[in-house]
C-alpha cells in the first residue's frame, strides 16, 4: 500500500497542481473571455487569439516562461525586449498601406498629429495616479491605438507593463466603433457632419515612390528615436510602390507579417502571469487607455474644426475625419465614414478619412520616438 502511495505522491509531485493558485484560475477566465471575443465577436482575432492563448499558457504552471530557457521567454526576449518584432510589423504595415489619400491632401497629416494630443494628456493623467514618467508614457501611447508602437515603447520604457498595455491597445482598437462615435457626435453639429469634401485627385506612381523616401528623411532627422519604426514602415511602403520587388512586398505583407504576428501575440500574452496582471494598476491602465483613446479622438475632431476656420468654402474638412487620426487602420476611417453617412447618406468620407488615419500611424510612431528621446 505504501509503495502505491509513494508512486501516487511522486506522480503528484511531478504535476503542476501544487503550483496553481486562485490568481491563475482568474487569468484563465480572462483568457477564455479574450478567446470568446476573438472567435465569437471577431474583435481583432489575429492578435487577441494568440495573446489570449499566451495568457493561458503562462498561467498554467510550467517553465514555458522560465528566464533563459522557456520557449515563450525566448520569443519574448528576442522579439519584444530587443524590440525586433514591432519594427518588422511596421515593415508589413508599410507594405500594405496606400499613402495616396495623404499625398493628395497633405493637410490631413496635421490631423494625424492632433490625435496624439490624447496621448500627452493621458500622460499627465497617469502621472496623477502615481505612475512614473516612463510608465505614464507607455500608458499614454495606448491613445494612439497602435499595438506595435505600444509594445515597442513599453519594451524600452516599462517592460513590466507591456502585456497589459498591449492588450489594452488592441482591445480599444477593436472597440473603435463603440468608443469613437459618441465623442464625434458630441463635438460636431449636424451641419458639420454633412460637409462634403472635394474628390481627391489622382496620385501618380512617382509621387508615391517619393513619399516613403521623404518621410524617412524628415522624420528620422527630427526624431532619430523613431528610426526603427519609421525606417521599416517607409521601407515596406517603398517596396510596395516601387513595383519592382513584388515578391518581397508580398512576403512582408503576408508570410512575414503572419509569422511575427503569431510570435508577437503569444509572447505578449505570456507577459501576463496572474501576479503581474491582478493588481489595481491594471484597472487604472484600462481606464486611462480608454480616456487616452477618447481624448485622441476629440483632439483630431477639434483640430479639424479649428482648421475649417481658416479654410475657404468648398475646401473645408469634414471634422469627422479628424477622429481617424488615431492609428487604428482602417477601422477608424470606416467609423468616420459611417458616422458621416448617418448624417448624409450620399457623403462618401472613407478615402478622405484614410489620410488622417495613415498619418496617425506616423504620428504615433513619432510620439513614441519623442517619449524615448526624453525618457530613455
Amino acid at each position: 500500500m505504501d509503495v502505491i502511495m509513494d508512486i501516487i505522491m511522486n506522480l503528484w509531485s511531478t504535476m503542476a497542481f501544487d503550483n496553481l493558485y486562485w490568481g491563475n484560475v482568474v487569468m484563465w477566465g480572462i483568457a477564455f473571455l479574450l478567446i470568446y471575443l476573438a472567435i465569437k465577436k471577431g474583435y481583432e482575432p489575429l492578435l487577441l487569439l494568440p495573446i489570449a492563448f499566451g495568457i493561458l499558457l503562462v498561467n498554467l504552471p510550467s517553465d514555458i516562461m522560465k528566464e533563459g530557457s522557456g520557449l515563450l521567454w525566448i520569443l519574448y526576449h528576442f522579439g519584444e525586449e530587443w524590440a525586433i518584432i514591432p519594427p518588422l510589423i511596421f515593415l508589413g504595415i508599410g507594405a500594405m498601406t496606400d499613402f495616396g489619400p495623404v499625398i493628395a491632401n497633405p493637410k490631413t497629416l496635421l490631423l494625424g498629429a492632433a490625435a496624439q494630443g490624447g496621448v500627452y494628456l493621458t500622460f499627465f493623467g497617469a502621472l496623477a495616479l502615481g505612475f512614473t514618467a516612463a510608465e505614464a508614457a507607455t500608458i499614454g501611447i495606448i491613445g494612439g491605438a497602435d499595438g506595435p508602437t505600444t509594445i515597442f515603447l513599453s519594451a524600452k520604457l516599462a517592460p513590466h507593463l507591456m502585456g497589459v498595455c498591449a492588450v489594452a491597445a488592441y482591445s480599444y482598437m477593436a472597440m473603435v466603433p463603440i468608443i469613437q462615435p459618441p465623442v464625434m457626435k458630441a463635438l460636431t453639429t449636424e451641419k458639420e457632419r454633412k460637409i462634403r469634401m472635394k474628390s481627391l485627385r489622382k496620385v501618380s506612381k512617382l509621387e508615391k515612390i517619393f513619399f516613403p523616401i521623404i518621410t524617412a528623411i524628415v522624420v528620422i532627422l527630427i526624431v532619430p528615436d523613431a528610426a526603427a519604426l519609421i525606417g521599416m514602415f517607409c521601407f515596406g511602403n517603398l517596396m510596395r510602390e516601387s513595383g519592382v520587388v513584388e515578391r518581397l512586398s508580398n512576403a512582408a505583407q503576408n508570410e512575414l507579417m503572419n509569422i511575427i504576428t503569431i510570435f508577437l501575440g503569444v509572447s505578449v500574452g505570456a507577459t501576463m502571469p496572474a501576479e503581474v496582471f491582478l493588481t489595481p494598476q491594471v484597472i487604472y491602465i484600462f481606464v486611462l487607455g480608454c480616456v487616452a483613446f477618447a481624448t485622441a479622438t476629440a483632439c483630431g475632431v477639434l483640430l479639424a474644426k479649428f482648421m475649417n476656420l481658416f479654410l475657404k468654402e468648398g475646401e473645408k474638412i469634414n471634422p469627422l475625419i479628424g477622429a481617424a487620426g488615431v492609428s487604428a487602420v482602417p477601422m477608424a476611417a470606416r467609423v468616420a465614414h459611417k458616422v458621416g453617412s448617418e448624417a448624409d447618406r450620399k457623403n462618401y468620407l472613407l478615402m478622405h478619412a484614410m489620410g488622417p488615419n495613415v498619418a496617425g500611424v506616423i504620428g504615433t510612431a513619432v510620439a513614441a520616438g519623442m517619449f524615448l528621446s526624453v525618457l530613455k
Partner: protein
Amino acid sequence: MSLEMTVFVSGIMGVFLVMVFLQIMVSLSSKLAIHLEKRESPDDK
C-alpha cells in the same frame, strides 16, 4: 522645467514639427514628381 513638462512640451512640439515639415516636403515632392512626369511624357510619345 520639470521632466514631465519637458516630455509634454517637447512631445507636442516634436509631433507637430514633424507633420508640418512633412506636409511641406510632401507638397514639394509631389510638384517635383508631377513636373518630372510631364517632362517625360512627351518623350514617351
